[in-house]
């Protein structure tokens, strides 16, 4: 049994890409600091969605990923969003969770972001860049309530703090291929590949990685 969650285990070795990034960090120039959020209207160059699966047999989608490649002035950004809410997100086992959200994922995302245990790194032609992580929009994680008269209602969450998305952004400097990774506790949990060109850009790959997938070549 090798379950994985976006914000899970800590003791798996970082991937080869991570190691390369770490090596470059010790020798390269300081990475440009990403702004907390966009300050001008961004042109969306590409957008891609993926589900974040557990890596158990028949693994469930426990979070939804969205990546947007955006251009603001001369700079290109990759902005990622990990949400406990998404059309294919599976709720925790049992009858109370409602399809399309996962309460436990929401709790984990909030705890990990609050604990500053996430980071986003990019490796491109210009070297290495470290991005920023923040809590994003509030999202509704509802649960069923079974009443004595047999009715089922979908309860508004009275959660405090409310369920939130995790948002990441990193600048992709210069034209060429860029490898982007989101790490949780040093473990790669999301991987993206982008091609940036003067006239545009594409997201070539977006995938959530299970606890052991990060070691794949």
């Amino acid at each position, binding site marked *: 049994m090798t379950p994985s969650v976006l914000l899970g*285990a800590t003791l798996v070795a970082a991937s080869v890409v991570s190691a390369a990034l770490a090596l470059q960090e010790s020798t390269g120039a300081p990475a440009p600091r990403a702004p907390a959020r966009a300050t001008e209207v961004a042109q969306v160059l590409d957008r891609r969605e993926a589900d974040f699966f557990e890596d*158990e047999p028949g693994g469930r989608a426990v979070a939804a990923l969205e990546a947007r490649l955006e251009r603001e002035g001369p700079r290109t950004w990759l902005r990622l969003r990990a949400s406990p809410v998404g*059309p294919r997100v599976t709720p925790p*086992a049992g009858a109370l969770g409602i399809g399309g959200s996962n309460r436990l994922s929401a709790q984990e995302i909030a705890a990990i972001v609050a604990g500053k245990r996430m980071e986003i790194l990019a490796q491109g032609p210009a070297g290495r860049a470290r991005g920023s992580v923040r809590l994003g929009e509030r999202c509704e994680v509802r649960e069923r309530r079974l009443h004595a008269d*047999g009715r089922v209602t979908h309860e508004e969450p009275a959660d405090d703090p409310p369920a939130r998305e995790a948002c990441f952004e990193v600048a992709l400097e210069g034209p060429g291929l860029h490898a982007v990774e989101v790490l949780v506790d040093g473990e790669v949990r999301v991987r993206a590949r982008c091609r940036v060109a003067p006239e545009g850009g594409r997201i070539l790959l977006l995938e959530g990685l299970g606890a052991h997938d990060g070691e794949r070549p």
Partner: protein
Amino acid sequence: MRRLHCLALGFALTLGGALSLRADEPAAPPALVDPVDGARWRARDAEGRWALYLAKIAPQPGPLTTPWIEFLERQGDWQQLEWVAMATNSSQATGVLAKLKSPVWVRCCVWCLRAKDSHAFTSAKQQLLARPDIVRGWFALHPEAATGAAQELLHELNALGSGRDMRVAKLLAPPHDPQVLLAALVPPPKLVEFGARTRAEPGVTYVHQVERALAILEHSDLRGEPWAGRLAALLQHGSPAVRRAAALTAAGRPWRELPVSRLLARVDAADERPDVRSAAVLALSRHQPTSAYLRVLGVALDPTHPSFTAAVSRLADSDSGFLLEAWATLDAAPAGPEGVAFLRTARERLAARLVGRPEEDHAAWVQARLALAAEACLSGAAIAATLIPWTMHALAAQRTLPLVRQALKAAAESFAGGDWTTDAAHAAALTESGRAFARDVLRGEAPAAK
């Protein structure tokens, strides 16, 4: 001997908890508000505390659990924390137990390695990996605990090193025996509501003890017998609260262990409590077995059934499109504006889930759609008149998609009714019918009874 050991340990834990309480007493920071008065809490025994905890979190079990765990931490109440961890898969509770270095933290985390949900599993594993010497020592004392995921963890620990902290390990509680931990799953016929009591009476079993055992079972990966049989038996217990809890627990069980006939009996029993009927609907509302799903479809199309909203709620999670049309042509409207709004929201939720699905998903739905059509055909249910034409139309509309066509071809040759029922004779009939439907779609023929 083992029993004596457990009794001695229980005494030690209680004494330890009491000593810890005295040491910690006015320790609560000003910003933290206890959900109940500490003295009132300590005047209760373990069952009394659990009953109070349940009553207090009932309005919002999810959000209210967190301040309770913090309160239990301040109280140093290991026993309640362990129950919370096992009955709710709370990674916060396992974390607190480990932080407190309580005598039960290793056994609780090892138990939580059984968690079905990976969030709880991962958290428990983290706690155990963080203190490898103690955990290796504990497994050396209790090698019988190294099974399944615990065995994998031990291998991982042994690969990291070989140190064993036997001094600390000997102070820790032994592993849980599921038969002892879940003994309340075989309750006496007479159960008592705990009510306003503060302490349990000797020789009395309370409803919440059975509910707690069911919650622990629900969150674990315990499969097969005796658990499946015990769960099925509880659906016929004299206590409606137990029947309800058993049905909700069944919702998370493997479909082959689902006590379908007993759950169907609850759904259709007019003299059953409405919430028990709805709990049974929630348990049956999955694609497999198809006989169960078909009955829930019927409830979802009958606004007069007390479990209508339960069926609507669940099927909006799993339906592949049939209900979008069927709900638009209901013979009767749901009762009251709330019912109408609930159905509208469910339709919107279902539509949002289905929009833009990739070809892979449509291909993956082929088997389930064929199985349900075959089940409807064989059952002679009234819903067959609409479900079968809809299924054939939906499949025919997508048969030019390469993956869907591939799935249809595979189904025409190897659709297996045994994937949708545990009854061998019924499985054979489903196989024949399902394959015939697939062949008809591939040939482009109009639907016909099989």
